[in-house]
């Protein structure tokens, strides 16, 4: 076994596909024993609202339901479930403090356990990671 690899993910969009993509990478990495840190910023922060049910973007929004059905057929859980799964697997979730102000999202409206940090705080963590992904 090699040393523990660390992963940093930044999510800047709140659409269904971006959220699911981030969660799939996070859950897979965590299952492989990696340490995962995800920073939700700008529209990505909407994903951390309690009970968030993201939709596809633009016109595709209307097809979200079809996608959800297809995904459940192949056993891929929905966003909220994947987020809980990630937290259970030890993934650390960060909420961008500036985005909270910009988007008018309060701590009490977000999922429990999200750490509130600024960009510097997250970059300090990302600086010590082996892999960095930007999903936006």
């Amino acid at each position, binding site marked *: *076994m*090699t040393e523990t*690899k660390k992963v940093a993910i930044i999510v800047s969009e709140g659409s269904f596909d971006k959220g699911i993509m981030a969660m*799939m990478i996070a*859950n*897979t990495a*965590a*299952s*492989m*024993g*990696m340490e995962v840190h995800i920073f939700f910023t700008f529209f990505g922060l909407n994903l951390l609202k309690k009970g968030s049910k993201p939709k596809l973007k633009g016109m595709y929004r209307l097809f979200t339901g079809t996608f959800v059905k297809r995904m459940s057929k*192949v*056993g*891929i*859980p929905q966003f909220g479930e994947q987020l809980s*799964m990630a937290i259970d*697997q030890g993934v650390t979730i960060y909420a961008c403090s500036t985005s909270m102000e910009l988007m008018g999202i309060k701590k009490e409206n977000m999922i429990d356990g999200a750490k509130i940090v600024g960009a510097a705080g997250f970059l300090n963590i990302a600086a010590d990671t082996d892999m960095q992904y930007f999903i936006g």
Partner: protein
Amino acid sequence: MTDVLDCKGLMCPMPVVQLAKKIKTIDVGQELELISDDVGSKEDIPAWCQRTGNELVEAKESGKIFTYRIKRLK
């Protein structure tokens, strides 16, 4: 009796997520069998074993069904 984790009908990332959970329930030195119909598992399961330091004892393919025997090493 080897524990069996049936992941048929589950696509990435669920097989490895479930494998990570399941392996913790068996003793070190014991094996478990994972069954999948996700073609991606052919790369994913060996990658998972390599990364987590567990041993892929055997990988079999029969039609669209892939069977893996994984030994918990740590």
